[in-house]
């Protein structure tokens, strides 16, 4: 409601927060086109607070604390001349936000919070995370929410590392263990398991390739060895930079790595799609906006970077059923901006370095001769000078952004939100919530040899990971952020809860088709998804009593209280409270088909919001 909004504003006079929550979105839509990286009318830039304070050709446009004296505010008035934006009128809510922000700039001098007080020396990842987080909370004046109890923590860690809820016996086991290091021991054992490798593959298959849209797409990802390649890499804890290099070079030398070529191959020689997929992995940011012009918001991303990335791959060509060949010549393209100015696309890294190459002069065509290839007769030809290999080397060896991107992404998986948000937009536009922590983690990850298991272990043993849910501002991480279960986590957890036998591709595939998103930016339960949960025959199968499953166990219990207790423990891993017992009792009494009653109770528990959400 509007009333509540104003109340919140009174407590939220922090200019930084006002900027990111209200002013920046407003400025991005209405001002930045003419006052930003692409164009600076009157020498004025408005895409960051610093730029706005600097002012333009005609001087300052902001007087901190005094909106009525600030040109930036004055020009918004409908009667103002000059009037901004030139052809639009901002609404009164937006104008009020600008006023609020300028006012907040005048309040007592804010210490430049740039430098952290915490010493950068930490022995372990967990210590570093705990240290920086604690400092962040104290600076914001918030307290962290209560830690999860063992029961909740166990469920969360199984879901995150094994991709499923713990079985009742596994949970009991953990609760009964008395050792001090029991959490570390559980984490270690889960990370060492095959389930961890599968879980990581499930995540990274979606991050790297996107969710499959049709069934045969999944078959091809399996058949090509792509899934095996990922699982192998995670199971053996291959350094991340080596795994990425493997994918970009796409000339796997070992049988276990043969699927590496699929990253390029599935994209069917669409070099721009390849470039757009490579960028988030190697740079941490999407660069799609830089196809036609320099990035309008993130000033460090230029068109040359986009086309430079395309150029790294545009000599590559799929060879059916074999791999991705590469030509020794060609791929000399120019790109034009909106003003039709043309430039050659040199292979360019985000840090500006270009790969040295001699381009043929004018109309000269380079001759494609056999001596330019390692083995000219090979089905998948490898040139002696390979663009994509040169790029892959540069991108995975001397590139701090690679570590940064991975660390941020894994943080977002476990904590519900990246240190930079969105996780695939790590550019000048998006300031990290904890910049020093991100720097520390990235440096540490690279120094460790890109050791993924070590990073995962360090993150999940931290205090912030183990916090309970709450209503803190997300970027403070003072409470756990709500995360939905992925389709695979759901399918496996349903099998555990219902006591069904292990492998069930049919169920998994059906859930993936209905609930395809992994960590969506905005959670949106669709009608089709509700339809699936309500009517799916594969799900209904799990609820039929048989083969010693949960439904059968329930059907043999006499007492409604026992039935309810068993059901809650099996599905939600906890006991019901009095309200829930009462509602469940009413439900059981109403059921006409008594033998199916237990199954229906399981359904309600397996479908309800609590099950679909990370604890």
């Amino acid at each position, binding site marked *: *409601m*509007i009333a509540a*909004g104003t109340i919140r504003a009174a407590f939220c006079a922090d200019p930084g927060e006002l900027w990111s929550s209200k002013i920046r*979105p407003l400025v*991005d*839509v209405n001002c930045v*086109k003419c006052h930003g990286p692409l164009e600076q009318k009157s020498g004025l830039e408005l895409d960051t607070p610093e730029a706005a304070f600097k002012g333009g050709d005609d001087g300052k446009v902001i007087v901190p604390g005094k909106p009525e004296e600030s040109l930036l505010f004055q020009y918004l008035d409908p009667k103002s001349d000059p009037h901004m934006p030139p052809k639009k*009128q901002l*609404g*009164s*809510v937006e104008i009020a936000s600008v006023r609020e922000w300028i006012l907040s700039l005048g309040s007592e001098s804010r210490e430049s919070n740039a430098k952290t007080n915490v010493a950068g020396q930490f022995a372990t990842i967990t210590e570093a995370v705990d240290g920086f987080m604690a400092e962040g909370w104290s600076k914001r004046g918030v307290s962290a929410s209560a830690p999860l109890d063992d029961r909740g923590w166990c469920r969360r860690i199984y879901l995150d590392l094994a991709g499923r809820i713990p079985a009742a016996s596994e949970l009991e086991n953990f609760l009964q263990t008395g050792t001090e290091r029991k959490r570390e021991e559980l984490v270690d054992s889960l990370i060492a398991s095959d389930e961890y490798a599968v879980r990581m593959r499930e995540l990274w298959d979606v991050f790297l390739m996107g969710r499959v*849209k*049709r069934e045969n797409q999944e078959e091809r990802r399996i058949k090509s060895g792509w899934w095996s390649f990922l699982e192998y890499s995670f199971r053996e804890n291959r350094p991340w930079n080596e795994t990425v290099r493997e994918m970009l070079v796409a000339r796997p030398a070992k049988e276990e790595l043969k699927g590496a070529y699929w990253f390029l191959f599935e994209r069917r020689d669409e070099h721009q799609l390849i470039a757009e997929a490579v960028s988030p992995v190697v740079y941490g940011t999407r660069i*799609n*906006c830089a*196809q*036609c012009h320099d990035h*309008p*918001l993130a000033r460090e991303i230029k068109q040359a970077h986009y086309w430079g990335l395309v150029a790294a791959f545009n000599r590559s060509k799929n060879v059916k059923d074999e791999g991705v060949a590469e030509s020794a010549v060609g791929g000399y393209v120019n790109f034009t901006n909106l003003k039709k100015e043309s430039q050659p696309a040199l292979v360019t890294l985000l840090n500006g370095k270009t790969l040295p190459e001699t381009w043929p002069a004018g109309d000269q065509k380079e001759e494609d001769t056999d001596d330019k290839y390692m083995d000219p007769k090979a089905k998948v030809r490898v040139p002696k000078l390979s663009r994509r290999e040169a790029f892959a080397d540069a991108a995975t060896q001397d590139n701090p952004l690679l570590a940064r991107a991975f660390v941020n992404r894994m943080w977002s998986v476990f904590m519900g939100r990246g240190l930079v948000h969105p996780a695939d937009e790590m550019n000048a*536009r998006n300031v990290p919530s904890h910049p020093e922590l991100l720097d520390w983690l990235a440096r540490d990850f690279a120094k460790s040899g890109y050791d993924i298991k070590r990073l995962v272990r360090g993150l999940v043993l931290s205090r912030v990971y183990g916090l309970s*849910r709450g*209503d803190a501002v997300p970027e403070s991480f003072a409470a756990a952020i*709500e995360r*939905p279960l992925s389709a695979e986590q759901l399918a496996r957890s349903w099998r555990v809860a219902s006591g069904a036998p292990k492998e069930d591709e049919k169920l998994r595939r059906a859930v993936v088709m209905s609930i395809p998103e992994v960590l969506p930016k*905005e*959670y*949106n*339960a*669709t*009608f*089709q*998804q*509700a*339809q699936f949960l*309500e*009517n*799916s*025959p594969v799900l*209904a199968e799990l609820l039929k009593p048989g083969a010693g499953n949960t439904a059968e166990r329930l059907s043999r219990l006499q007492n409604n209280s026992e039935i309810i207790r068993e059901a809650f423990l099996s599905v939600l891993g906890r006991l019901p409270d009095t*309200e*829930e017992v009462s*509602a*469940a009792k009413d*439900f059981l009494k*109403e*059921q*006409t*088909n008594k033998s*199916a009653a237990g199954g*229906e*109770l399981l*359904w*309600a*528990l397996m*479908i*309800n*919001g*609590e099950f*679909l*959400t990370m604890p």
Partner: protein
Amino acid sequence: MTNEDLKCAAGQCRTDEHKVHRRLFLKGLTGGTVATVTSFSGLFENSAFAAETKKAQKHCILLWLCGAPSQFETWDPKPGRPSGGPFGSIPTKIPGVHFSSLMPQCAQIADKLNVVRSMKTAQSEHLQAITLLQQGNPARAGFTRPTLGSVFSNAVGQLDSPLPNFIFIDPIPGGNEFETFKAGNWAGWLGAEHAPVRLGGDYTQFLNAGSDTIPEHDKETRESLRRFLTRKFERDRNSNIARSQNAAFERLKGMTASADLFDVNKLPAPDRERYGPGSFAQHALMARHLVENGAPFVMVANGMNWDNHVFQHEIHQMLVPELDRVLFHLVNDLEERGLLDSTLLIAMGEFGRTPWLNAARGRDHYPNAWSMMMTGCGLKRGMVTGATDSDGVDVIEKPYNEQNLFATIFKALGIDPYAEYDLPGMPTFHRVENKAEPIRELLA
């Protein structure tokens, strides 16, 4: 707050503003006669208000003739010409205007239809052309524009409607390039809530699937338990996920209550006989029925049947009379029910077909000069605009492209075609770009 402040930029309202808009919208519509309103959806239970909104609601039925029908065998015949084909033409109710002889019934009601004979678009391959004619503007790399149904859902769809705002009926799940399009992102930057709900054919069975195995009563009670638990979780944890789940299940409940509307077998038998036996005809009837029951936008397709590169005359000879009959009944039925003035009826494909035959006696793709039909809400009746040369090779009068078409559609529905989308972090987009002119001679 002034009226100016209340103007929501197309597609983007912040929650606070939207809630205020809802309040004032309600006040305006009821003239203050509805006493207390505790919830928006509660209003629909008020019969006076429900009737008001039903009247005010605009509808659209899009008969999507995917694969693309031949203009020679439908709206722009060229009898006696080499391109004319074997079917010849017949006079229509509009003096001087002829349709293909395969469309006798439409000829009878030509004064209730409008035909554009001068469509001229730039995409000749299915996927690109379907995208173009569904989105109404050339695609821009990196951005997914919403399709017509999604724009409609966003602009004039009903909040909290028991029926989805955008229903897509397509009994044939496949269809080559069309299948690829179907798997894509229909709602684009408007977001998943404006994506279509896909029903008809096998998809309808899915809606009814559970009902055979579980007694109705038990289904209701288990849903009550689910709802209780999820609402409790939503309250206790302020859970967004639970909130979203509950909303989805509410919609499902609404849909399940209307499940019969999506079952071809439940349509009135006399109507079914009139429309004819084909699945396209039956589902077009379903579309009318849905609109009668308040559905805002219904799109009917039937795979990609019209793409006759082989034996075009033979296949069109079967397809066109069905289309003819369907349009005849749809228009008359809508008119009879007082719905034609609030329902926009569009029949078109993604391009036309070639004036010449290929070696397999088929007509190939032809975006250069083709026809489409639309009538109903906001449009005149009995207009035929644009013309092609004697062989239908080129447009000689008033060429129109997809932008002109969409500008016309939006204007007819009372939506601003040139409204800007407010999309943070994205370039400026309008519903129709380049301020393309609508086809003024069709607008009422």
